[in-house]
């Protein structure tokens, strides 16, 4: 049984580990060094210390991006989870009036299939699609209707106050279905007896939702919050494709990812772009650690 064990282990690990170290680990490690240099890609990098970080602190676009991440970090999970929870509750437990067992409302299978579909579409394609939906003239889906109704068209992506919300709306549009399915799976694993017992005690639906379902779904909610929070720190594909001038108007929808991409591959400021990458890394890690700490609760054993 022992013979050929080590050659086998090494043989199986060598390809995946090499690939992973070359394309993932090494770049991550280098990023921290490059962020401390003035590298423009041609001459060897020169050491710059914290110059890039100092410049970043005075860069308006950087702070705008941070502000957008914070807005997205709050609204994207809150709105998505609220909508998805409401729908998941209806689809799984909303139609209890007939029969004794808890069941979803009429047509719940259909809704689940439809809601989930946007998850399959790639974000850049959704972005192009919504670029048409938001078009500020009679050819746009929304403004076409507004104009027909005799109202003034709205510049969804042109108005600096609206643009970020238009972007967030698209992200919510895509994400809700996934979380409906995720929460449904969570709700399906809650024993039916608990609901039946609560119902027998005359608990109204709201109590059923807030006092029974929600606490038992806590772990799943935490996962959802972390996922959506991480999505709020990305946003590259949607901002790059959907918004005016890739992050516009006037940087009003820009995100760190877009700033990193443009600084590196449009302006050739590789050191500066890496510094922003490091900032993004620390933001993401801080968020994940904070979420896990703040939301930690005693898990309810069933």
């Amino acid at each position, binding site marked *: 049984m022992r013979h*050929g*064990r*080590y050659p*086998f282990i090494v043989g*199986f*690990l060598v390809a*995946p580990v090499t*690939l992973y170290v*070359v394309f*993932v*680990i*090494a*770049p991550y490690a280098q990023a921290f060094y490059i962020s401390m240099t003035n590298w423009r890609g041609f001459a060897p990098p020169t050491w710059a210390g914290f110059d890039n970080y100092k410049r970043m602190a005075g860069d308006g676009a950087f702070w705008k991006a941070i502000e957008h991440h914070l807005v997205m970090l709050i609204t994207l999970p809150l709105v998505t989870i609220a909508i998805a929870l409401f729908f998941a509750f*209806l689809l799984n*437990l909303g139609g209890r009036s007939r029969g004794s067992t*808890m*069941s*979803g409302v009429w047509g719940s299978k*259909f809704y689940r299939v*439809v*809601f989930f*579909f946007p998850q*399959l*579409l*790639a974000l*850049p*394609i959704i972005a*192009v*699609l919504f670029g*048409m939906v938001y078009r500020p*003239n009679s*050819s*746009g*889906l929304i403004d*076409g*209707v507004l104009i027909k109704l005799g109202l003034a068209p709205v510049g969804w992506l042109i108005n600096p106050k609206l643009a970020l919300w238009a972007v967030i709306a698209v992200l919510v*549009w895509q994400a*809700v279905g*996934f979380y409906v*399915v*995720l929460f*449904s*799976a*969570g709700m399906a694993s809650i024993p*039916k007896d608990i609901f039946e017992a609560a119902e027998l005690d*005359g608990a109204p*639906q*709201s109590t059923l939702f807030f006092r029974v379902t929600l606490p038992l779904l806590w772990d799943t909610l935490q996962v959802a919050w972390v*996922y959506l929070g991480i999505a709020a720190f*990305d946003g590259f594909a949607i901002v*790059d494709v959907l918004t005016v001038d890739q992050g516009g108007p006037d940087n009003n929808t820009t995100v*760190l990812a877009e700033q*990193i991409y443009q600084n*590196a*591959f449009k302006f050739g400021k590789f050191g500066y*772009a*890496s510094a922003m*990458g490091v900032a*993004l890394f620390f933001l993401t890690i801080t968020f*994940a650690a904070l979420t896990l700490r703040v939301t930690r609760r005693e898990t309810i054993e069933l």
Partner: protein
Amino acid sequence: MTTNTEPGTSTRPRLRDIPPPAHRRPADRTGTRDLRLFSRLGQVALLVWAVVVIVPIVWTFLASFKNTTEIFSSPWTLPAHLRWANWGRAWTTAHVGRYFLNSVLVVGLGTAGTMLLGSMAAYVLARYRFWGNRIIYYLFVSGLAFPVFLALVPLFFVVKNLGLLNSYTGLILVYIAYSLPFTVFFLAAFFKTLPSSVAEAAMIDGCSHTRLFFRIMLPMARPGMVSVAIFNIIGQWAQYLLPVVLIAGAPDKWVLTQGIASINTNAGYAADWAGLFAAISLAILPMIIVYAIFQRQIQAGLTAGAVK
């Protein structure tokens, strides 16, 4: 995932048949009224959301058959007739066909490579004890926590120095490398759950480690493999950042997401809106077909990672 009837319920007395205790009655009645209102509001909300999801997609398909005049004058009506020429123009002139095949090639090889290398690494890490096992495992898993944007600049130069910029090979290898953390994490957990009795019996019969993996363990891990494969296919199909950075200079190799985004930019200059609608429709249609066939597996595969 089904939530309705369990087999045992029919034999038990139905809860509704038991009369509630007298003092409960008023509460119960208001409860029912609450419930009816809640359910009805809920029904409306569900219907509204279904419309919000479906309408933009249907609208795009309708617009893909219109001409520019129709798109501007009557965005809400059916096209006067089916102009398949729009689709033809998108497929050939705008290269959607080419981008589509590129995506199929890159994602096909990318996912195949990910599954092969990921399952090999996960298997060894999950079922063999050796020095460095945990280090390698955590090396892979830590990749789940890092944003790709941190690695973007150095990654570009690693690929460039290897001479793989603007090549399928470079893109596929990078796809595999960045899909490994989740694949290894998920499959290692899966391989751990497989019983060891079968493996021991095979070893006694003189089966080699490699043969054991490919002939016995891999087939046993099939449900997990299917979930991860679906997860990787959807993830790699949607990838936009990596191709934009790594193969920007070779338009003939562009993948679908990148190609459609570029058509979107150019449509403004060419004013070929019908062509753009057709291009989006072409990108969406295969997804609808795939979803119609594999709906259950896809939902399970995509959510499996989060439920774990």
